[in-house]
């Protein structure tokens, strides 16, 4: 059974429909790259899939359940996010930030149990960030911060992690490291959905590309197929000779 699927979903704001008739499926362990131009609706689609924003019409299902019918506290155990915005309080320590990932599970005062500590330990291990444990967020480089934010999402222990442009602002080495980390995460059975403009790098790790274009249905294909067939060029409106 799929982890998440949509039925005839339309997304947008108010009267403005960005994309309609979407029937998308996310399988367990899939790493999906969402590509398209700025303003095409990538973030809106992600927000709608996460239940942050209501669909204009149609439904998002997690397993068999419509996302609307899942209480926020339960949904937080199914989907975690890494957003483009930085966390508000920059003087949190890395450990405090990652422990906030256990928010849906921890006690009513936020006290952590053995299972919470174990999940945090796994997140530190997977992201290889033990050495940052006591650092404050404002002391981290962009690449370190991104790994810490991913670790926080991992500590939330959800089946699906949604990341909005996780590689922006990073240098090439950090882009590669973050994408490889996400690939590794997806091999543990979690599904990962990222939006990205790093077509060539993402193509090396993603299982599938979802290509969005203005007024077009979403194109779904293997990354290599999509690049070779010229579809990527088309939906990014690129000139011949690029890519």
């Amino acid at each position: 059974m799929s982890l998440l699927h949509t039925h005839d979903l339309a997304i947008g704001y108010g009267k403005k429909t960005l994309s309609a008739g979407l029937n998308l499926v996310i399988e367990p362990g899939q790493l999906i790259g969402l590509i398209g131009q700025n303003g095409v609706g990538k973030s809106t689609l992600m927000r709608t899939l996460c239940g942050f924003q209501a669909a204009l019409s149609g439904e998002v299902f997690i397993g068999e359940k419509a996302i609307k019918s899942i209480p926020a506290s339960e949904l937080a155990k199914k989907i975690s996010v890494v957003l483009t915005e930085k966390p508000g309080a920059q003087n949190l320590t890395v450990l405090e930030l990652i422990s906030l990932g256990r928010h849906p599970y921890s006690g009513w005062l936020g006290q952590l149990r053995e299972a919470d500590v174990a999940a945090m330990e796994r997140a530190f291990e997977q992201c290889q960030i033990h050495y940052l444990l006591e650092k404050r967020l404002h002391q981290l480089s962009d690449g370190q911060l991104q790994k810490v934010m991913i670790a926080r999402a991992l500590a939330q222990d959800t089946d699906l992690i949604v990341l909005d442009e996780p590689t922006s602002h990073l240098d090439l080495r950090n882009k590669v490291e973050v994408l490889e980390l996400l690939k590794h995460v997806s091999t543990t059975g979690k599904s990962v959905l990222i939006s990205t403009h790093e077509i060539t790098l993402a193509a090396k790790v993603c299982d599938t590309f979802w290509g969005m274009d203005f007024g077009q249905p979403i194109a779904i294909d293997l990354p290599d197929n999509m690049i070779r067939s010229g579809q990527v060029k088309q939906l990014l409106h690129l000139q011949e000779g690029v890519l």
Partner: protein
Amino acid sequence: MIRQHFDTSISKWRLVFVGLAVALVLVFLLSIALGSVRIPISHTFHFLIGQPLENAGWQSILINFRLPKALTAVLVGAALGLSGLQMQTLFRNPVAGPFILGVSSGAGLGVALVIFLGFSFGVYFGIPDLARDWLLVVSAALGSFLVLSVVGLAAIRIRNSVSLLIIGLMFGSTISAVVSIMQYFSQAENIQAYVIWSFGSLGSLSWGELQVLAPVVIFGCLLSFALSKRLNALLLGDNYATSLGLNLKTTRLLIIVNTSLLAGSVTAFCGPIAFVGLAIPHLARMLFNTSNHLLLTPLVILLGAVAMLIFDIIAQLPGSDAVLPINAVTSLLGAPFVIWLVLRRNNLHYSFDQ
């Protein structure tokens, strides 16, 4: 590895809290020992552990004046500090605080309505003391709630400190204007009652009034502990907080109710007290370098109580017969602190990302 880290940090924090608790006890003893009549600390200590004093005059001064006043100072410091802490986190704004956001003015409006309308209908002195006290608390809390809700609606959209300050100040002056109009149309004795209230005082509370203030503040403290998990999630920003399963509307409402209750009840009894609510949370963050509300809540309670007791000792001008209004002391010490705070913003922004 994490478990190990938690263990060392727990023992570190245990030390901090024991230290603060000892400081609180010492300052409390000092505060009831000092005043226009000097009572030796050893005697006040005996008094506190329940031994009757030989000197009946001292006994009476301690029971009827100094003990209720010191207890009031503890409640006021804790309540104002907590409401400032929660406003700063909710509005993600370092200059938020009960006095600056006009919350104290709102409470003042509630109090003014009770005093002026109560007097004009001739019922203010007619009702039992306890009922009147509760009426004051409820109307002051409602006044704060009103102001905080409106300012809150603006502040959630406005992240800019200056704009928020201006809105708070405008609220303050609008409400002062309303209160002036009420004063203009009322008799001298009502005006006197209101003006005396607006000076701020810790010493005017009877044991009966403390029986109203204490449960409200203790309830607010407990609610603050219960809210600290939600407040921590808010530190990440609204979107992350939502993704952690937090209901933003409920959370904001609970915080606004709690802060109005804390700031409103204190203001009802002690008048508008400036700067404590703003400065104490910053002091706690700077001294102990943490943003975690589960730690900040007890830290602010203890620091607020200690600071308020010290302010009160200063206001007593020990050794003299004169007493300064408490609001003058908190403003004299608080205003320079806030100026300094704004000037060294390069450090401040780490807590608020501005």
